[in-house]
Every structure is written in C-alpha cells, then in structure tokens.
C-alpha cells in the first residue's frame, strides 16, 4: 500500500490490517504518555483546500502521537490567492521535506492526481463528493469495537447520499467488511443509479428504523446541492430526522453515528445526540487511532510492493 486514495481498490485484508493496528493505537492513546517514537523525523503535511477543522486536527494529533512533525497548508493564507497551481503547491511542499501529504480538495480525483505528481505517499482527506477513506475506516473501527465485528450487521446510512463522500466511502467499507447496508434518502438525494453501490436503497426511514444495528446520519450539507434537490428543513426532519420518537423505535442494542459537525435538531435530535447510545465522540477518538494506523502503515516501511 503506497497511498490511501479511496476505499475502492483497497482489499478486505488491508482494511482489516489497518483496523487491527488501530486497536493497538487506541491502547497507546489511553496511556499516561500517549506518544510513541515510531515516526520520529518524519514530516506530515496537511494540505487542505477546503475548510475542515476536525479532520485536519485529527491528522495532526495522530502524527504528533507518532512523534512525526506536521506542516499545515490552507488556501486562505497562501500563494493560492496569487494563482499558484495545485501542482506547484504540492511540489513545493515536497521540496520542503514533507514525507507524506494529506490532501483535501473540492475536485473529485484531486488526491489521485497529486499522487501522480509527487513521490511521497498521499492520503485522501476528502475529494469533492467522491471519497473520504479515513472517515470510513474510523467508522468501521467504532462499529467493530462496539459489536466485535461488522460481518452480518445491518447498517442504515441516512441523508444526502448523492452528494456525500462519507456515504460513498462508508458503503464500500462496511460492505467489504461484511455488513448489509441500506441507503435511506428521498429520491432526489439518492444516487441516480445504485449500480456499483453494494447497498440497497429505501425512501423511508420509518420502514428500516426497527431493523438496524447502526443508524448512520449524514450531515445536511446546505453548502452542497441547494434548494433545487432539497426539501424544506421541516419536511426533512419530519421524514428523515432521527427524532426522539424515532430513536425510541430502534432496537435496544442499536447505536447512532454521525460524522460531525452535527446540525442538532435537523438530522439528529438535540437530546439524541447526547444519548449514551450516540457514538459521536467515540468516533472522534477512533479517528485519531485510525489515522495513526494509516500514517504508520504508509510511512513505516516498504510493504509488499
């Protein structure tokens, strides 16, 4: 494994290997000194052309827990405003000594293009509506640590499936690890076709709510799509929001997940978000561990190429 560009093209063995390593890093993060020297002397650059707080912070925390140094690039404070291209930006960062780059960009395939230009490992930190592989890995880790496995679980992903890189990555990862996935959304927010999606579609959250082990809520992304595809917010909450009333109809052992940041009162009820069965903060913790596993795997040595 040279890069992590998406869940597609990653084998089940590779996914499970990363999750196994991440289990070890969860233990490292629980220590009184939550830091190991594994990547001393390496430099991880986070190159984010789209706004992000938690993903960037999570990667930086992961790099530092492995004793790597971090560099951070964001367009607001950079030469992008002077017209420097993506290519020149990443080549500059490579020349400065980045050993690995985490790329977030609004264009689909941006991380893959960058991987062609540079010789360092590239991690896709989100490319448009395409992929967000470390989100899928951290969600898989959260579920695996809660239930012990993904094999045979029923998982509903609810919300704007069509425009969500989280949905695309998570469906692929969950299915690869043996779960049955249902995408729940109004027709306008489902993909045009489910071909190539190892999942089934449903238009009704009420029909599936009592049947699942995990209900995974996507953020209502008011910045993508817009009013043309989106019903009014009250209408969305009415049919697809995880209200307290719907929450009560979940199986008693079922859990609630959300990639954050949450719109409380929209896709997730305010008190549901704070319920003990909501895994949101656990997901954040797992995010650091899984990103440590990815950095360690890509920077730790020559693997079976």
């Amino acid at each position: 494994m040279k890069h992590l560009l998406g869940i597609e093209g990653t084998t089940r063995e590779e996914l499970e290997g990363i999750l196994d390593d991440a289990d070890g890093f969860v233990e490292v993060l629980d220590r009184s000194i939550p830091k190991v020297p594994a990547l001393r002397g390496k430099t991880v650059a986070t190159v984010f052309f789209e706004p992000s707080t938690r993903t960037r912070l999570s990667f930086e925390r992961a790099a530092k827990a492995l004793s790597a140094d971090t560099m951070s690039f964001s367009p607001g404070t950079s030469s992008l405003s002077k017209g420097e291209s993506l290519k020149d930006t990443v080549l500059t960062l490579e020349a400065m000594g980045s050993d690995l780059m985490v790329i977030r960009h609004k264009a689909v395939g941006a991380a893959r293009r960058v991987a062609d230009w540079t010789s360092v490992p590239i991690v896709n930190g989100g490319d448009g509506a395409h992929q967000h592989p470390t989100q899928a890995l951290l969600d898989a880790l959260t579920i695996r640590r809660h239930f012990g496995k993904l094999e045979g679980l029923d998982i509903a992903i609810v919300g704007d499936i069509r425009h969500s890189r989280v949905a695309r990555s998570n469906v692929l990862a969950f299915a690869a690890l043996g779960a049955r996935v249902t995408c729940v959304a109004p027709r306008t927010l489902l993909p045009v076709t489910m071909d190539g999606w190892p999942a089934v579609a449903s238009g009704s959250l009420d029909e599936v709510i009592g049947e699942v082990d995990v209900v995974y809520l996507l953020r209502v992304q008011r910045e993508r799509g817009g009013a043309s595809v989106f019903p009014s917010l009250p209408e969305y909450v009415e049919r697809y929001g995880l209200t307290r009333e719907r929450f009560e109809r979940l199986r008693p052992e079922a859990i609630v997940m959300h990639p954050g940041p949450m719109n409380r009162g929209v896709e997730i009820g305010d008190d549901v978000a704070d319920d003990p069965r909501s895994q949101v903060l656990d997901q954040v913790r797992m995010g650091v561990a899984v990103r440590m596993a990815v950095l360690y795997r890509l920077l730790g040595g020559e693997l079976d190429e």
Partner: protein
Amino acid sequence: MRQVMEAGDVGRAVRRIAHEIVERNRGVGDVVLVGIHTRGVPLAERLAAVLSELEDVEVPVGVLDIALYRDDVGMRPTPVVGETSIPVEIDDRVVVLVDDVLFTGRTVRAALDSLTDLGRPRRVELAVLVDRGHRELPIRADYVGKNLPTSTTERVAVRVVEVDGSDGVSIEEAG
C-alpha cells in the same frame, strides 16, 4: 539444523531462572514480569507459574510490544502493531523483562524506552532463554537460560509450545 536445547532443557532453564529471580530480589513481592512480544510472553507466564509455586505469590505478567519503538522503522516492512498491556502500575516495582533470544540488544533498548513511557520502575532486570552474543549496544542479561556461541550468519530458533507446538532451541544456517 542443530538442536541445542530439548524440551526438558527449556523447562529446567526456566525453573533455574525463577530461583535466581527469587534469590536476587529476596522474594518476589515487588516483581512484575513483562514478556516481550511474541515468545517472551509465554516464557514470562511460565516463570510466573514457577514463582507462584515457589513463593506462593501471584506475580503479575505484562505484555510489551516494541514495534513502535524500533530504531529501524522505514528500513524493513512495518511490523504489525501488537498488544501492550501491563496489569499493574510499574512505578517503584522491579520489572523483569523476558525475551527468548538476546542478540544485538536493539529489541531490549526499544523495550527499555517503552517502559520509560509507561512508568518509572525501581529497577529493570532482563531474563532471556538464550544469549547468543554479538551485541551492538551496551546491554547485558541478568538471567540467562543458556549462553550459546554463534556466528552472525546463523539463525537461532526458539520454539515454545504456546506458539509453535513444541519446546526447543535450534541453530540454523541462514539460507
């Protein structure tokens, strides 16, 4: 392949080391055994069993995985991250590190760094089943099952029942 320790030899070496641990520490009240992943772990558990038989005390056994403390990260395939768990605080206790083979000393160096991050033991001792020489760092063992002169091209293979199905030590020519 040359067999240098049979199953009975391994068992006797473990028993002798247990006696030496008791003698040197005047009992085992403060002792924590920490096995280095992989084959140090069953050896540590066996030492604990003999110690509890000798002293009638349960000696805690921990597991240390040193993958993240190696000095050759990036030079070889990344080892899988194993489990590190020590059931008690090691502060002010006597930690006996247990491994199968002492060779260059680099694994022990990594283990010492790892222990430093986990706490501050009063003393750290080292027990190995086989010392094969060729140190690259100033490290020595306190308890040795067998000193085994080898050449650097040879490979020392330790087998333990828990991992390999049988006990024994053999020397193989590197192929």
